[in-house]
């Protein structure tokens, strides 16, 4: 039988506010356990939540970026359940009235076609703390630093039909929140987490199959892997006469399997009700306008502009706009320079070294301005592309700007025709035999033989002679 896969994703994006969603505690990652747990984070008796409107501002940006219907009046609700790292015994979330309503994003499928994936809603909520099971001698440690960090839970429609599409969708959301600057997108640190609702149904059937919810997926690679093995599991199960049960399954990347965490019967009745400690979040025109004014150019628009205005290929523009940092780096470096050469440098040399060193472009020791300065010297023929590689390496090693390095190392290209003539003449005089051979050679073979003389001249000039001038002059002298 032919099976169709149906997937919906729930993405939890930690919002990049400085303080928590309902208290003034810091949100910085990696501090000593419980050092960022204030009285509110601890759920102390008598404390009350106060909403951090920065989180609302970020949600407004997201809403605008996906063309969603903004919830101008949204309501916080309590989701009640007991867990040791949930200090109050309930999570403050949004239920009936979320801050972001129906929206959509476009993804590019494998065949290059564009597909629209619906975003059902996105709502604000607080993160829980962490339970630590290691190094506690059979007990459990609780770290509440994370408790109260704002999350935007982004829920997709069940529009996704394959693991690859799911990854494309997740990457798209990732790209958007990173461009908006509302989430750092760090999946290892848990700033961006994906849960996948996966079901299968016979091709052509309208009714959805029973779904399993996959949790604990912390990379795009694992997302694709987890979905594929879950789809296989469900199909095998049905085809061998079994039935899929609605449950939450944990993805284990080490064992490369999904396993049952809790079934529907064991699921909590969350007893949602509006949180009486918080007023509804009302967004007025000014607040919305201020948030929208801060939205930068988004990846799709930027990619199109790189193609239309800078003359880049769609593919190069796509690579360069994959992250805001990369696009910013490229744009800064390309100011006043040839865009294609700038693109080649960013995607080539710069990316290669970064990859090799495992660095992000934001941490590149050669700033975009420094790269731009070097590109200028290529553009005005001060250095050749070949010398530029040495200059780049020197910049990477902290030897200063391109101009400083060119000056200090005397790398300035020789373009003075008198000086080049002198070197050419010297080389020809020292290689009389080769000159004779060249002159007697078949005209077809001469271009290849010319390379020898070019090499000798470049060597004599320590690579600094302008290659075009050397070529022209040699042809003239040997001709």
């Amino acid at each position: 039988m032919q099976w169709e896969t149906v997937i919906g994703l729930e993405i939890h994006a930690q919002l990049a506010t400085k303080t928590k969603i309902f208290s003034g505690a810091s949100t910085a990652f990696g501090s000593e356990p419980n050092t960022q747990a204030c009285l509110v984070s601890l759920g102390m008796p008598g404390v009350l939540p106060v909403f951090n409107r920065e989180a609302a501002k970020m949600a407004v940006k997201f809403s605008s970026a996906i063309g969603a219907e903004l919830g101008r009046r949204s309501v916080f609700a309590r989701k009640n359940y007991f867990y040791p790292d949930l200090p109050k015994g309930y999570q403050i979330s949004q239920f009936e009235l979320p801050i972001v309503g129906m929206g959509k994003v476009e993804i590019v499928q494998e065949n290059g076609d564009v597909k629209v994936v619906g975003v059902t809603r996105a709502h604000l909520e607080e993160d829980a703390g962490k339970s630590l099971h290691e190094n506690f001698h059979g007990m459990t440690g609780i770290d509440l630093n994370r408790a109260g960090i704002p999350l935007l839970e982004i829920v997709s429609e069940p529009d996704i039909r394959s693991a690859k599409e799911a990854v494309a969708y997740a990457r798209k959301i990732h790209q958007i929140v990173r461009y908006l600057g509302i989430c750092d997108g760090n999946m290892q640190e848990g700033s961006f987490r994906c849960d996948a609702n996966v079901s299968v149904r016979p091709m052509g059937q309208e009714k959805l199959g029973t779904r399993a919810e996959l949790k604990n997926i912390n990379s795009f690679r694992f997302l694709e892997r987890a979905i594929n093995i879950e789809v296989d599991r469900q199909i095998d199960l049905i085809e061998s006469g079994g039935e899929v049960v609605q449950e939450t399954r944990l993805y284990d990347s080490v064992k490369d399997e999904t396993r049952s965490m809790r079934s529907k019967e064991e699921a909590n009745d969350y007893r949602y009700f509006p949180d009486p400690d918080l007023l509804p979040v009302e967004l007025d025109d000014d607040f919305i306008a201020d948030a929208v004014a801060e939205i930068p150019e988004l990846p799709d628009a930027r990619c199109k502009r790189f193609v239309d205005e800078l003359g880049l290929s769609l593919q190069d523009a796509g690579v360069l706009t994959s992250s805001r940092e990369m696009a910013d780096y490229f744009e800064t470096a390309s100011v006043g320079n040839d865009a294609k050469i700038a693109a080649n440098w960013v995607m080539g040399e710069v990316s290669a070294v970064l990859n090799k060193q495992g660095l992000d472009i934001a941490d590149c020791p050669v700033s975009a301005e420094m790269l731009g300065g070097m590109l200028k010297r290529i553009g005005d023929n001060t250095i050749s592309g070949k010398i530029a590689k040495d200059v780049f390496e020197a910049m990477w090693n902290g030897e200063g700007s391109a101009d400083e390095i060119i000056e200090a190392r005397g790398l300035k290209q020789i373009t003075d025709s008198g000086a080049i003539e002198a070197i050419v003449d010297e080389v020809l005089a020292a290689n009389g035999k080769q000159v004779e051979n060249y002159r007697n050679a078949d005209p077809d073979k001469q271009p290849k033989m010319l390379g020898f003389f070019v090499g000798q001249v470049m060597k004599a000039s320590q690579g600094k002679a302008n290659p075009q001038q050397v070529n022209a002059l040699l042809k003239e002298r040997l001709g």
Partner: protein
Amino acid sequence: MHTHTVSELAAALAAGEFSSVELTQHYLDRIASLDGEINSYITVTPEAALAQAKQADERRAQGEVTPLTGIPLAYKDIFCTDGVKTSCASRMLDNFTAPYNATVVQRLADAGAVMLGKTNMDEYAMGSSNENSYYGCVHNPWDKERVPGGSSGGSAAAVAARLCAAALGTDTGGSIRQPAAFTGITGIKPTYGRVSRYGMIAFASSLDQGGPMAASAEDAAMLLNTMAGFDERDSTSANEAVPDYTADLNNSLQGLRIGLPKEYFDEGLDVDVRASVEQAINVYRALGAEIKEVSLPNTNLAVATYYVVANAECSSNLSRYDGVRFGHRCDDPANLEDLYERSRSEGFGNEVKRRIMVGTYVLSAGYYDAYYLKAQKLRHLISDDFSKVFEEVDVIMGPTTPTTAFKIGEKVDDPVAMYLSDVYTVACNMAGLPGMSIPAAPVNGLPVGLQMIGNYFDEARLLNVAHQFQQQTDWHRQMPAGV
């Protein structure tokens, strides 16, 4: 000294008749000798109180004076007090020392008030008799066989027995007004949002409101001046200017429109209590007020609605007491489930458990619409009743309670009968309106409360109306035998 009102004490302290240290020591001595029979305090903090009193005297010497400087107060044990046990009268929090001050506690401390200790109450403010306390019931100073009312029964009894100059209470469904009525004192529940809830341990967040309990309306006004006001830590606190509540106390009541809801004078009302309330209304008539009958037709739904809303909220508010971070934890939990079950079973008393169960039920899938949502709708109807009445009157008056204080043990086995003693007070909380209880003529030696309900943020008028009554009567000056 202890027979003075707060305003009289303030004058005496200002005149140098005695120091705050002397006054505080006097109250501490009274507590030591008299509270054994009343049990109004859970915790007394003599050293801290005397240190605060000394500081108050020093501030006074430097000219730093507020009307509350050096006045010894008692705080219901629901208010968090930094470094002092804050138990909510529950075994759950018997070992809990609050690491911070509630906003109102801090404001009173900043004003130079002295804290004598923390008063007894119904566990987590759930009760109308103060019998639901881990620390034992409170005895009504007027008749020690009787309850002082609840849940702020300790504060009420302490004020009535003059074991403090005034006290703080909280009122979710009548918990300031009902014990004030039962013990012959003056108590006001301000408009919801008037007083910050930060640091006041939550029972039902949309109903809870702190307020003063004192010997007179003037004293209550003095305390409210310091307590009221916006607090950025409480999103539900009102960003409304706070008037000087003592400024209008002497306004004339000529032409004041008083509404008497006929539903508050129904067959459930004790005839003697009714007579006492009618006598009090006559005082207002003599002061030039216009009296008219009004109707609050949904009064009969108020108790049922209240117990759905309040219990739903409490079931969630009390989830944080799980034995994980603070409070009671059972011995040797076998696993997480066991930790939760036994810590909560051992830590909470029966009434608290009953309300958590009811609240959990009304929020459950399949019951939410029938109970919680319906209760929210009824809550609107109850509020609308009041809005209509306030189009034609300035103040609503009636009895605070259907009867005088009942005997200890009389209603413990009948929770519904106990809940019905809140019949006249809960609607006010449902609507978020300010309500007050002041002493009217006693019945058979037991105090009777005259309740008055005002429009939103109309506390100044309520206090004025109460104060004028207290200029004509001396019921508020009467004290239990032995005081």
